[in-house]
């Protein structure tokens, strides 16, 4: 509605908005997505500051408190560790600090590897799909070849050549995850390319790069967002698998994947060792899902 007193001129001074501005507004109105963002931010802040503020170090052992429950633990336990709010692990380290330390690694791996796969995969897929023909065939065969490399073997070779390194973890995971993304985006691009608005863009004089970035990529966000929300948990699990094989994070550093696999061994005697990292991971993944769904809806102008 036009407020009274507003002149016609003022109405015409409506500022142009882009899809991204609209999307941000819609995202802010989506309660589930906003809750997800707030919780993720809280976990990230905790992960950054809590280990600094905590009186316990992440590798500091206390031999008197081996696998002790937190003092508020409701069930009967053999020992209690006062002051350790999540209890201690099997060699007497504070679990709270370790869970948050694990969050640093897991969130970083999850986000960076997904982002890398997003950037490479979307661009690669969109270019291959848009160019089509021989370029497409060549680019997709390369993807097929990379697909066929055994993942673990690939990681081992990387480790052997470049020595064990934290950064390599990102590289290795990112290098594998973008392949699926590229395929999804290429398939979508092939169908979008046929649409009349792409021809309209060509008739308007746009070059291939402008068409890909302005018209194709915004129109593939739907499936891409869904895949991203699947990738983040996938990557976090892959990291724990690599760490389990001794190829990823090494003691005393830790990650959620490592904590969960350690906790699973002690499930019967010290369930808190599984419960807390698993809880954090589950909440995080939930939040990623909500944020992903929210982003997808926000970027679709047809959704109200």
């Amino acid at each position, binding site marked *: 509605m036009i407020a009274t007193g507003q002149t016609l001129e003022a109405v015409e001074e*409506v500022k142009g908005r882009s899809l991204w501005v609209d999307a941000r507004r819609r995202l802010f109105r989506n309660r589930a997505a906003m809750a997800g963002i707030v919780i993720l931010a809280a976990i990230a802040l905790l992960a950054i500051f809590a280990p600094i503020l905590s009186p316990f170090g992440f590798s500091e052992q206390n031999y008197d408190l081996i696998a002790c429950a937190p003092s508020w633990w409701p069930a009967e336990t053999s020992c209690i560790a006062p002051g350790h709010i999540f209890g201690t692990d099997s060699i007497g380290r504070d679990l709270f600090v370790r869970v948050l330390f694990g969050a640093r690694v897991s969130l970083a791996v999850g986000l960076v590897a997904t982002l890398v796969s997003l950037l490479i995969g979307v661009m690669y897929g969109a270019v291959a799909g848009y160019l089509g023909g021989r370029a497409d065939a060549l680019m997709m065969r390369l993807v097929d070849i990379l697909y066929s490399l055994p993942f673990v073997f690939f990681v081992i070779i990387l480790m052997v050549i470049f020595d064990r390194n934290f950064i390599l973890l990102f590289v290795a995971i990112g290098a594998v995850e973008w392949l699926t993304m590229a395929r999804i985006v290429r398939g979508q691009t092939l169908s979008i390319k046929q649409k009349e*608005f792409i021809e309209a863009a060509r008739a308007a*004089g746009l070059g291939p790069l*402008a068409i890909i970035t302005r018209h194709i990529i915004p129109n593939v966000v739907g499936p891409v967002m869904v895949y991203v929300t699947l990738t983040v948990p996938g990557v976090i699990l892959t990291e724990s698998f690599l760490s389990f094989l001794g190829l990823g994070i090494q003691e005393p550093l830790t990650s959620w994947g490592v904590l969960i696999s350690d906790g699973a061994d002690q499930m019967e005697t010290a369930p808190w060792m599984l419960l807390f990292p698993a809880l954090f991971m589950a909440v995080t993944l939930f939040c990623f899902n909500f944020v992903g769904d929210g982003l997808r809806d926000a970027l679709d102008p*047809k959704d109200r």
Partner: protein
Amino acid sequence: MAALLEIAGLNVHFALADGDVHAVQDASLSIQEGECLGVVGESGSGKSQLFLAAFGLLAANGRAQGSVKYRGEEILGASPKRLNALRGGAVTMVFQDPLTSLTPHMKVGAQIAEALMLHRRVSRDDAHRQARLMLDYVRIPESARRLRQYPHELSGGMRQRVMIAMATITGPDLIIADEPTTALDVTVQAQILEILRALKTDKKTAIAMISHDMGVIAGLADRVLVMRQGRIVESGSADEIFYAPKDAYTRLLLDAIPKADEAPAQTGKVGPPLLTVEDLRVDFPVKEGWFGKTRTLRAVDGISFTLHRGETLGVVGESGCGKSSLARAVLQLIPKSGGRVVWLGRDLDAATQSDIRKLRADFQIVFQDPLASLDPRMPIGLSIAEPLKTLDPAMSRAKLREKVRTAMRRVGLDASWINRYPHELSGGQNQRVGLARAMIVEPKMLVCDEAVSALDVSIQAQIVDLIRGLQAETQLAMIFISHDLSVVRRLSHRVMVLYLGRVVELAASAKLYTAPRHPYTRALLSAILSPDPRAERAKKRELLTGDLPSPLDPRARLTFLKSRFDTPDYRPKLQEIAPDHWVAEHD
């Protein structure tokens, strides 16, 4: 005698997220045995929902109230079993899109036979025999072979005939035909209407003919209902509606139909031509199977013409005649296989890709589907600004905004709508956006590729007026492509008729429409429907029989020159039979 179908006080509501939509409001009608009732209205008038609701076919969020009596039996809210027995048996339907209403994985014969076996006790062999007879009845050539084909192997007109065969084989009392010819070419439309007319006279089948096109209704309907926004605004005999319409809306619909005598006068050709096209050819490779050899489909087969400032060249022809390929090749959107395109004396062959991208500001295009030609995720303001931004990336934001506003006002759009998305606008508004986007760079030539074909008649008239206004204002040269000859006539100074990638006739608009020479042009013109029931009923049509031949068949282009069949490589030549009136050789 009780009416065959009697609908009284029917209301249809749809529950949507934004509240209820009252799609049909208090509709009452009756259809007598053997009668044809025409139901006219524009998209969204509720004309289809009225009949879907009557036979229990509403979408899950729809509700119907009122009374629907079939031969005195109340069927609204009847059990699904009773409705299933009725639908497809005594009451059958023919929908607009024959491809989506046929099951893609079933052979045509099996589908027709299935309809029969579901409703009548007949053996499989008998059903197939009857299916074949039915295909003969709807004039499908080589019916025995067609029975074994899949729907995608048939052309649109064939598929619609198959649908009619399916709808007729059970011997129904009533056929509900929902825009049965809208997706078809004019000559095919005339054939389908002929079949429906025969059904009505030979088999005494009642028909409910739903259409947005007054012309389609005119020749067939005994009585006509006019619907608007869910309400029946007028009903009466065909003659009453067409010759003495009472309601303002009915008059508006009738007025919106392009009249014959509106062709713009021929412009004087001043100066050198803007565009010269010489012997343009476009080939598409058609691959047969994985390892099959590649054949060449000649979409455009040697077309030449010139275009001057302020002139409109109409291009007409049926689907598959190469009119869109011609436009795209001229605009350098698809590669041509031969010939020359000269723009302002400059041969575009010599231009590089980046040169052509700069030249694009000079020639713009408006597409058929207004919604599909706009990026669904881009606000319309940005879509309109895009060609300008590409042309001059350094332009300041304020100036850009000003230009977008001017362009929007020029095509009759509210300038405050820049942030709307295409799906929030109607088809006509989206087509205005398309026009604004094309006109913002002040082109010298505009190609309209079926630019008004997807719009309702009243909107169509508005857009045509808008285009004429823009042309008068800017001395724009235009290529106006359409399968609708009456729309082309309203806009074009000269008209070119295409048949399978070749020109069969090219003449000034007035001459072509009043004195067509080529048999194909004559057939096209005779297929035009006029909103005049008496004339339509009396009209003797020069019907083309069968389908458009396949462009892959080299002899197809000799259809009108059968005396040269023994030399299949021969191309009919264009002959100037009068000044500026060119006609291809024919028998």
